[in-house]
């Protein structure tokens, strides 16, 4: 797995990367940084569970988070990954309800936490945060609509084909949708299915010549065929 190491930056510069605060004056960003609590966590550390009371808005300074829901039978559905400069638990921070999903570190991660009351105070004081909030939530909504579309209308094979293309492209673009190194179980958690179905879907894609499965690699050999199967 690739790591997300970044050079340590000043609090103001880190705050400037957060969409909510990017339009603020540098002096005000420092004020935001002062109310944030900075903590470091090891890999695979559960930050919070869904249903628990909301502690506040979490900002990733460095590392990678997985945000997920858990079904009654233990199956996991990944909602999204969160990397440096991005936030999570936004919904509970703004509506005051319990955490809507769980959050776990994928690798050693440094987080900043802005308590809900402090975030609300900032929101009332600086209108640009409110405008940015609408943009952030619109982007999240667009992502979740895409997830609903995939889970509702695409076959498992189509979802696997789409995920392979996305993972490969994301790894090359160095975005937070890493890693390109995935287990069948991780793919299943991303795609709303079970591990056995992933194996079947991969074999189906190999049968049509879209991919080749090697010892520890899934090689995309016919991108056009994979895109067609992904219904893109």
């Amino acid at each position, binding site marked *: 797995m690739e790591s997300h190491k970044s050079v340590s930056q000043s609090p103001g510069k880190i705050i400037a990367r957060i969409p909510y605060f990017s339009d603020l004056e540098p002096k005000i960003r420092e004020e935001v940084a002062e109310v944030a609590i900075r903590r470091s966590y090891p890999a695979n550390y559960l930050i919070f569970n869904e249903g628990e009371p909301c502690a506040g808005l979490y900002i990733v300074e460095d590392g990678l988070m997985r945000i997920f829901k858990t079904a009654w039978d233990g199956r996991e559905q990944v909602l999204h990954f969160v990397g440096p400069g991005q936030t999570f638990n936004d919904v509970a921070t703004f509506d005051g309800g319990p955490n809507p999903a769980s959050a776990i570190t994928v690798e050693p991660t440094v987080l900043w936490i802005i308590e809900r009351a402090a975030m609300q105070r900032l929101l009332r004081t600086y209108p640009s945060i409110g405008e940015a909030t609408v943009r952030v939530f619109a982007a999240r909504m667009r992502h979740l609509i895409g997830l609903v579309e995939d889970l509702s209308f695409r076959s498992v094979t189509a979802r696997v084909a789409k995920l392979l293309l996305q993972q490969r492209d994301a790894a090359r673009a160095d975005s937070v949708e890493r890693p390109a*190194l995935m287990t069948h179980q991780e793919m299943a958690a991303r795609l709303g299915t079970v591990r056995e179905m992933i194996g079947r879907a991969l074999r189906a894609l190999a049968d049509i010549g879209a991919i080749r499965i090697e010892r520890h690699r899934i090689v995309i050999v016919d991108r056009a065929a994979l895109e067609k199967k992904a219904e893109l």
Partner: protein
Amino acid sequence: MSTDNRWPVPLIDLRLCDGCGLCVEVCPVDALGMVDGKAMIVKPDACHYDAACEERCPQGAIGLPYLIVLDDLPSKDT
């Protein structure tokens, strides 16, 4: 446990592993063994990634990571 992209081996989540030993029994090349009551990859070079351990593990503690690559990529991914 290893996440070495060049020669990955099955990942074992030691928090989930209950030491039942079924993966050790099913491994056709004896790449797995029990160490301090937990499953471990004791012969990584022998592992040929047939996924028998992953399929057999009742705890879902074993996963085989696959690197997703394009056929036209340079050899840095291999």
